[in-house]
Every structure is written in structure tokens, then in C-alpha cells.
């Protein structure tokens, strides 16, 4: 004990749990070792402090049960409110996306057709079959519709037949 000091012994177990012989040996060592004397005193005071503090206990007040139940109801109500708010938010998102889709469809239905090229205009487009075959329109950077291609081809055939 004299060589190992007593710090390890005091670290390993609560002072109060040491046996009589261990305690006597520790005390004897502390008497002759200045370094360990302070440590031993500190361990004694620590042990007393902790046991005194552990003696302090609290009991629930008679109102504690009521308080917990009230808090539980409050928390549940808040959670329900939160769930409702989330639902409401999701519903809002859904409604606004539906409105946006409806508006987009309306625009496509009533505005877009006016921009479409009419059949008359297609028919009067001055394309020739040669121009089509040699892809002149493409070379000029123009774009032709399917109707324009058909009209141009069949018109030239009709003229030849006449």
C-alpha cells in the first residue's frame, strides 16, 4: 500500500463500501503519506456530501397528477391542431395546383386555337413539289406542317392530271 498509494483504491469503490481492513490500511497509509492525506480527506468529505445530498428526497405534490393530465391534454390538443394545420396546408396546395391546371387548360382551349394556322392558309402556301423534294423550305429555315406537305403534293398531281 505504501508504494501504490491509495488513489486507485479510492477511485474503484465508494468509500462507504470499503471493508474495515481496507479502510484501516488506507488510513494508515494516509498518515504517513502527505500526498495521500489530502486525497483521503477529500474522499471522506466527498462521500459525506453525496450521502447527505442523497438523503434529500422529493415527493409529488397532491396536484401533480392533475398537472400532468392537464399538460397531456394541452400537448395532445396542440398536436391535433398541428395535424389539422398540416392537413389544411396540404389541401391548400392541392387546391392551388388544381386551379393552376384549370387555368392552363383554359388558356390552351380558348387562346391557343386562334394561333393555329387555318386550313385555308395552309392551302394557299406557295410551296411546290420540287421545293419540297429538294428541301428548299428547310434550307430557308422555314417549318412546314404535315397538312402543308400533303396539300402541296396533291395540288401538283392534280395540275398534271388536268
Amino acid at each position: 500500500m505504501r508504494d501504490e498509494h491509495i488513489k486507485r483504491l479510492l477511485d474503484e469503490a465508494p468509500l462507504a463500501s470499503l471493508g474495515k481492513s481496507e479502510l484501516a490500511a488506507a488510513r494508515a497509509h494516509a498518515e504517513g503519506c502527505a500526498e495521500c492525506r489530502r486525497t483521503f480527506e477529500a474522499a471522506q468529505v466527498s462521500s459525506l456530501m453525496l450521502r447527505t445530498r442523497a438523503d434529500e428526497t422529493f415527493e409529488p405534490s397532491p396536484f401533480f397528477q392533475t398537472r400532468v393530465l392537464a399538460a397531456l391534454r394541452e400537448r395532445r390538443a396542440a398536436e391535433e391542431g398541428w395535424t389539422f394545420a398540416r392537413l389544411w396546408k396540404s389541401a391548400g396546395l392541392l387546391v392551388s395546383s388544381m386551379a393552376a391546371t384549370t387555368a392552363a387548360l383554359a388558356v390552351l382551349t380558348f387562346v391557343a386555337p386562334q394561333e393555329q394556322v387555318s386550313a385555308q392558309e395552309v392551302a394557299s402556301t406557295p410551296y411546290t413539289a420540287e421545293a419540297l423534294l429538294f428541301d428548299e423550305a428547310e434550307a430557308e429555315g422555314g417549318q412546314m406542317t404535315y397538312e402543308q406537305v400533303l396539300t402541296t403534293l396533291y395540288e401538283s398531281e392534280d395540275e398534271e392530271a388536268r
Partner: protein
Amino acid sequence: MELEHAPELELARLARTGDESAFAEIVRRYGPRVFRTAGRFFRRREQVEEAAQEVFLKAFTQLDTFEGRGSFEGWLTRIATNTCLNLMRSARRRPELSASDLSEDEGAWLEQNLAGAAVERQQSEERGLVAADLTERVLGTLTPDDRLVLMMMDGEEASVKEVAEATGWTESNVKVKAMRARRRMREAVEKLLSRGAKMGE
């Protein structure tokens, strides 16, 4: 069946379905145990009560996890311990304590106990309060884990196994934590004693 005599598994089952009176019975039955656990961490009554309330609210939301393999009390104690540890960790206040911070009463208490005049557990109520105040301040300089392990093992004489059950730590982890915590507490007290001695010279 009267709830007062209902087995814990039945109470837990009823509370899980939203039965408030079953939950009220749980609070009544296990309140003292939860207060005892919270009392290891906090010393002001309102703090203890606040922590205990938080424990029960958390337990209510976690009732699904109680499978009835162990005791309900053990399950609740673990929730209580971990909730209090988290509350204390989130406070993050561990001020240094020096001899100059001690009140006159605290200094006198230390001096008397250092002289070996009263290294007895039985003290007057007033001196007991001084000791508990001082202990709280010393414990306040340690980590929540250190405090818990010291309060349980050195204060309440709990076994390594009991601490492991209450915290969910392994037994070897408890032993290591206890060794370190004892050393830190001793060093904090030693510092107070040596400064006190210097001041007295």
C-alpha cells in the same frame, strides 16, 4: 376491475388506448419513483416537478415500446433517467467553483468536516442543508453522467448493475464512469480544501 389494483401491463395497455384514468393511475403509482430519479439531478422543487412531468409525457408517447418483458417501473426509470440526463445536458452550465465562492456557512462546514469532528451522516437539519447546498455546487461542476453515477453509487449505495439498468449503459461502462467521476469529485473537493487551508493560514 378497479384501476388501483390493476396489474401494470393492463394499465399500460389501457393508457395506450387513450384511457386517461389509466394514465392518471400510472402517474399516481410511479410518481414517487420518478421524483426520486429527478431529485438526483435537480434540487429545486419546481425543477424536479417540471422534469417529472416531462418524464410522464414522454412515457405516454412511448407506451407502445413497453413490451412487458421487464417491469414497468424499470422501463419508466430508464425513461426518467435519460430524460433528466438530456435536460441537464441541454442546460450546459458547469461553472468552476473555487473556495472564494463559498459562503461562510459552507466554509465552516468544510472546516469542521476536514477536522474530522463530524464525519457522520447524522447532522442537524441546518448543517445538512448547508452540506447539500455545497454538494450541489460541487456536483454542478461535473458532467451530468458523473453526477448521476456518483449520486447513485456513492450517495444511494446502488450497485453497478442497478446503475446499468437505470441508464442502459453496460456494466463495464458504469465502472469506468464511476472511477473517473470519483476522481473528478475528489479533485474538486481537494481544490476547495487546499484553498480553504491557504486562506486560513
